[in-house]
């Protein structure tokens, strides 16, 4: 415990990024993630790194593209409307096979929406969030500790698979403080022979580009990229199971929704209801296996989300519709209460 400090989730992300060797940050302020930029503004000049408040989100993501192409670990952060602005750049990063870490501290939408916590960017994060065939590795922290550790993981996976990784957080996770330990064993960045870091007259020019006008070639790039995505799906899915061993009802939730859901599971257990929780930690790749397993054992699945129902589609796919899956939700910046989730669990425990 001696090494634990109390930090906001946003600050934990920023410090973890620095620990992961990210010396370059480009951002633009937006609530509820501005502490990331503020922290970087304070720290980066002291350690010889770059903090740059760009003129817009679009500028920031394109600066990320440039620094990543040069072979360095780099990050940007924003909240929902800002991520939409970055979407073009994110697609370009994916198209150029560039690693980078993008933070989305979600707020209520659509449009300018509100500033309170939300999970309504799940589709955007996991199903694209830009044009073209591509995926991001999407990590969904459930604590301030994970805001830090998954940021480190994001850098490692992005480098390993040469693709952008996103931290899909929400306003609560960004604003809350919890004790966090920041001693990480960070995998050093791999060699990047593709980087545009100067030929030193010893090799051919590297070109980092997402333009490919010959369809036969572009198709080849896409097939190759999806072979890599397949590896990610096979190897990198992460989740937490909580009290699932004997469960006949399953709830599932990620991020802040999983924290409230955990309380509801504990309350339901006190009442003798056999209920368990699966908390996806990666939402792309979606952890299908524990759901396939539980589909054989439970009679009902409740998906708790701060949205109108987005992750629920992946849950239904994962269980091949063998078990009914229903939604328990709030939206627009509201958070379901323990009572609301408990009532939902009780309803299905009684067999309604």
């Amino acid at each position, binding site marked *: 415990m001696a090494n634990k400090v109390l930090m906001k989730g946003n600050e934990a992300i920023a410090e973890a990024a620095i620990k992961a060797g990210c010396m370059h940050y480009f951002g633009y302020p937006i609530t509820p993630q501005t502490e990331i930029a503020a922290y970087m503004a304070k720290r980066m000049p002291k350690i010889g790194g770059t903090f740059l408040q760009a003129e817009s989100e679009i500028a920031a993501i394109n600066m990320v593209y440039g620094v990543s192409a040069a072979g360095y670990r780099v990050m940007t952060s924003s909240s929902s409307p800002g991520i939409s602005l970055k979407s073009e750049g994110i697609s370009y990063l994916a198209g150029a096979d560039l690693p980078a870490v993008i933070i989305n501290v979600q707020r209520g939408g659509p449009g300018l929406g509100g500033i309170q916590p939300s999970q309504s960017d799940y589709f955007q994060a996991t199903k694209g969030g830009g044009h073209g065939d591509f995926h991001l590795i999407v990590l969904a922290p459930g604590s301030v500790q994970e805001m830090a550790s998954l940021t480190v993981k994001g850098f490692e996976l992005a480098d390993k698979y040469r693709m952008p990784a996103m931290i899909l957080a929400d*306003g609560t996770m960004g604003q809350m403080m919890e004790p966090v330990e920041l001693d990480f064993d960070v995998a050093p960045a791999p060699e990047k022979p593709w980087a545009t870091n100067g030929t030193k007259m010893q090799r051919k020019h590297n070109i980092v580009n997402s333009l490919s006008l010959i369809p036969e070639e572009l198709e080849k790039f896409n097939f190759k990229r999806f072979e890599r995505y397949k590896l990610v799906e096979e190897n990198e899915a992460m989740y937490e199971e909580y009290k699932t061993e004997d469960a006949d009802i399953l709830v599932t939730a990620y991020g802040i929704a999983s924290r409230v859901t955990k309380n509801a599971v504990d309350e339901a257990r006190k009442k003798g209801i056999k209920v368990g929780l699966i908390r996806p930690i990666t939402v792309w790749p979606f952890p299908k296996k524990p759901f396939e397993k539980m589909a054989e054992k439970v009679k009902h699945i409740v998906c708790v989300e701060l949205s109108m129902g987005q992750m629920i589609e992946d849950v239904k796919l994962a269980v091949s519709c063998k078990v009914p899956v229903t939604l328990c939700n709030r939206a627009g910046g509201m958070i379901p209460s323990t009572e609301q989730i408990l009532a939902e669990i009780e309803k299905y425990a009684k067999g309604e």
Partner: protein
Amino acid sequence: MKTTKYLFSGFGGQGILFSGKFLAYKGLTEDKNVSWLPSYGPEMRGGTASCSVIISDESIGSPIIDKTDVLVAMNLPSLDKFEGTVKAGGTIILDSTLIERKVERTDVNVIYLPATRLASENNCPTLANMIIVGKLLKVTGEYDDATIDATLKKVISAKHADMLDVNKKAMEIGANYGD
């Protein structure tokens, strides 16, 4: 196994978030699990501010508080808004300089502390919040000099070290008031 849920509330600028932070750091000093969740956004910008603090021997589920054990209310809108959220048998500490009405609940312990008046009488007008925290620790039986000193050193940065003594003094004023 014990879990205590605190809600601090008042105007922006009264040190609401700081009081909550003090309590969270105190929990960390004592090797407990803690969470601290502020209100953010429009309500902070000139309106009411609040923060939820949970201190527990167990790991903490949701940082959001449905039912409060201890409510600190430093203005009337906060008392109006949160009085109903306190558990039966819970505690409400309010700044009676700024809140003229009495608590309507009869199933909670209420402490009326003229914190803002005490703060200005004792030449620490910005520390009504810490006067309340002192009282809070006294009534919960957690007023311990060594822990308080260690916590203040964590929560007040070295740059503001001159504020350590005056914060401690404010807490003493609160703790001793009414004795």
